[in-house]
């Protein structure tokens, strides 16, 4: 359960921010047309399901369109888990046991109600309002054919939902590198599973080396994702 939700978080989190960052908000001063191509930030997250929960702090880097690397730290600052995603591929690296689980996102155990990659793409479908300063909620069919309700506030998307119960909320907008930036994301599904994430010290569109997205697997026991038993 943890892994499933955490993976969903990993895949979803940065694109959520990306979607949020591409929108205009009159209260914020930003560069028109600016988008998030890369992102690095400290992260604090909570994952809650009906029968479990976890939380932690760490760091993430993201590069458009689908590369992400998340590090979760132990209280002593050592690395508990690193998660890399690149397209449909995902790697979970546990330095403590020198073990990595590698597979496709689609191979993650299905539980928790979130829709993984498909949900991420739905979340990314959050184009800014064509009406400057738009407020209120509209229903529309998104670019991926999903019927959704979208709530705008001063032109920014603050919430989205689908008929099957998936919801995402964007808040704490700031500007980083000239780009509007939602520092807090809150995802929920029909089972009340919840992923909440807060970002700090974001750096937007700073150069990132390819190595930041490549897991170091030398000397690491690599197993298929199907053998993953739990976080």
């Amino acid at each position, binding site marked *: 359960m943890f892994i499933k939700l955490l993976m969903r978080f990993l895949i979803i989190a940065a694109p959520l921010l990306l979607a949020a960052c591409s929108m205009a908000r009159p209260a914020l001063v930003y560069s028109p047309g600016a988008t998030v191509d890369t992102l690095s930030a400290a992260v*604090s997250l909570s994952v809650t399901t009906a029968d479990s929960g976890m939380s932690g702090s760490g760091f993430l880097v993201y590069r458009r369109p689908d590369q992400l690397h998340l590090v979760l730290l132990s209280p002593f600052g050592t690395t508990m888990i690193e998660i890399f995603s690149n397209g449909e591929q995902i790697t979970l690296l546990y330095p403590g046991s020198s073990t990595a689980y590698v597979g496709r996102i689609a191979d993650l155990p299905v539980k928790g109600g979130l829709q993984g990659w498909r949900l991420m793409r739905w979340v990314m479908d959050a184009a800014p309002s064509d009406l400057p300063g738009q407020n209120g909620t509209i229903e529309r069919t998104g670019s991926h054919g999903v019927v959704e309700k979208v709530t705008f506030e001063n032109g920014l998307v603050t919430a989205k939902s689908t008929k099957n119960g998936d919801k995402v909320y964007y808040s704490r907008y700031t500007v980083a590198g000239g780009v509007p930036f939602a520092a807090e994301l809150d995802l929920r599904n029909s089972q009340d599973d919840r992923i909440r994430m807060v970002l700090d010290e974001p750096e937007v569109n700073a150069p990132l080396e390819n190595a930041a997205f490549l897991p170091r697997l030398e000397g690491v026991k690599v197993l298929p994702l199907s053998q993953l038993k739990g976080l």
Partner: protein
Amino acid sequence: MMRVLICLLAVSAMFVSGAIPSAEARTIPPLEGLEALRKGFSGMSDFTADITQEKRLSLMKRSMNMTGTVRFRKPDQFYMAINPPYTSRMVLKDSTIEMAGGPDGKSNRIVLPPEQGLGRWVSKLTSPLTTLPDGVAIQADLSNALYTLIITPQGKGQVKELTISFLADGTIRRLSILERNGDKATMTFKNLRRNIGLTDREFRL
């Protein structure tokens, strides 16, 4: 991972303990350094200290800086709190770890095998050390009042090198953990107080 954490807890507790004789700058036998720590630890029942913690992430070329508090009480209690924005808390009671953090303060509970409990590690410090621990290489030196121990676990585990610097009076200055992936975590202790009568109330999430 949890075994590493418990080891670190025990090491941290040792380094804030009692007086350690000063010496001129010199390389000292590893066993001498370890035994000095053990002796200091024997005179300590509890401690609290402020900490700063820096995490350097090699792949990401970034670092995180945190502040917080740690507490320890014999025989088997440890508490650690990290201040915002990286808020987290951890309580260890022998082999049971409770951690809370994240935006919602969600808590996790982990129960370790009994042989990995903090109490077992602490009990090992009651007798003088006559041999070095298996599975590690240790370097030790003493520069005026500052001891430095570099502990290198053998094998391919997560921790590549553990470096501890502490004053001759037992006050730890710094604990640094170099991981095999190149990441480095450094914890600096300040405002350390010993034997102040901490109670169970100070070891709750």
